[in-house]
């Protein structure tokens, strides 16, 4: 019984080992002599001004998220397109419903002003 799980167990152990080994190796072989200067962002001597990461305008995120949403939905078109002929009117109607629902989201997003870059 247990034997069936052996592959899983082995893999689990392997995964853990691997993670452990990688970190351990880095720890063991990587020489570490932390100094104040070393822990600074730029070892070139440049003094960092302000935070290390620039803040992106939130609009980037928003647009990116919207893109992902609509982009991912497109993948439903793919199988549909493959057997479009076989599905006939039914497939067309189904997809129209799907697009209509997407359209609702689109109209909502538009109306809420999420697409305006200001």
């Amino acid at each position: 019984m247990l034997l069936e799980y052996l592959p899983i167990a082995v893999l689990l152990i392997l995964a853990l080992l691997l993670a452990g080994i990688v970190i351990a190796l880095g720890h063991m072989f990587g020489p570490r002599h932390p100094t104040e200067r070393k822990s600074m962002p730029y070892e070139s001597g440049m003094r960092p001004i302000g935070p290390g990461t620039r803040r992106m305008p939130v609009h980037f995120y928003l647009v990116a998220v919207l893109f992902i949403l609509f982009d991912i939905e497109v993948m439903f078109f793919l199988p549909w397109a493959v057997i479009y002929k076989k599905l006939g009117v039914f497939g067309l109607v189904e997809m129209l419903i799907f697009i209509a629902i997407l359209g609702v989201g689109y109209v909502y997003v538009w109306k809420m002003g999420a697409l305006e870059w200001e």
Partner: protein
Amino acid sequence: MSLNDLLVNLNLIMPITILTAWACVLLLVDLFIPKERKGITALLAALGLLVALALVISRAGVATSAFNGMIMIDGFATFMSVIFLFSGLAGIAVAYDYLIRSGIERGEYYVLLLFSIVGMMLMAAAADLIMVFLALELLSIPLYVLAGIAVPRPDSEEAALKYFLLGAFASGFFLYGTALVYGATGSTALTEIVSATTSGGVNLSFLVIGAGLILVGLGFKVAVVPFHMWTPDVYQGAPSSVTAFMAVGAKAAGFAALLRIFVLAFPPLAMDLTPVLWALAAFTMIIGNVIAIAQRNIKRMLAYSSIAHAGYIMMALVPYGQGNVAADTVASALFYLLAYMLTSFAAWAVVIALEHNMGEGRDTDGLSLEDYSGLGQKQPALAAAMTVAMLSFIGIPPTLGFVGKFYLLRTVIEGGFPGLALIGLLTSLVSAYYYLRVVVYMYMRDGEPVVRREPWLYFTALATAVGVVVLSIFSEPLFNWASQAVLKLI
């Protein structure tokens, strides 16, 4: 499948179809409703729920499957749909004024609520694990947003983030469990899973582990120990009207899925799963009730109380594999969910009426036990509703909670788990301590409670409280209805 089939199938799930379409339309309509008149959106959403409710009730008694067996329209789905739709209506009733007071009156609130209810209804009707997963996400994602709808209030954001991260985490487990079950049986349809299992030739280890992971994923949704830790934080941080809806709807939906999946697909695994369910139920009842004692914040207390009640309902699942009592246990779980819904809304409506000062950037007041001092003198009606709710939570007659517990414990004992029933009994004794403490504060301490006098809140609190008492008197037909509902399922 032809176009005609599509229409037939859409017609079969008409309440869900209508509600989905209505939610989409409402999302657009809401864009054109001015900000100060979002009451119209609330009314429209309630209208949609009422129409769906009427449809559901008019079609009670129908038992059929739709979309190639992905969805089952039967008594079970009908019963649960009624619970969901009622909690949606109550969720709108308690929210309307609350949102205005909190300064978060947004039409999206109602739309998201509708989508979430669609998810719940699908969940109760789902007969395929894919469907269950989709429904689970459809009900959860709006709830994540709703929990955080009070942005930029930090606690609301925090609640939303915790709920979201852990919810997604749990979804992962559920999904992986589904994958394993599919791998073991070659199908995700519940009926085919069981037939594949009985006909042999399945990888039982995959199946059992898959079932365990599915249990974990749904156990998160209904908040059983040890998958409960999000509950208090989220219940506390989310806007109270959301919490009220979530506490009832999401829990009921989770149990709907658990009951259907386990009773339909996993009876052959009962030997393996029953001890797990037993332990989950026992720990949930014990830990939920005991930790609730330490709570002074009423929302946190109710959160632990909801955990504890998940434990009670979980008891019904324990004997799920015994054909002779399974019908009774499922019926008693359904009945208990109904009782829990009414009781919860009575309590939450009162909590919402007392909550105040929760505008932007301020700490909310009116949520500690002390704020309930003197409610008995100042607002006897609300105090009475709260008392009824507390008694019902404990399970003291004449309340639905009592009847529900009675049925539950009876079936658990019939199923041959007297020990579990004993734990249930003892923990509900323990629970009396913290429930009655609320009553003590209301009636035996002097104080000046700040109470929002708003007709819909009053109506919800009193109507549900009266329902809790009155229906307990007519519990027999209700229970029979629940039994009828599961007849087809078993």
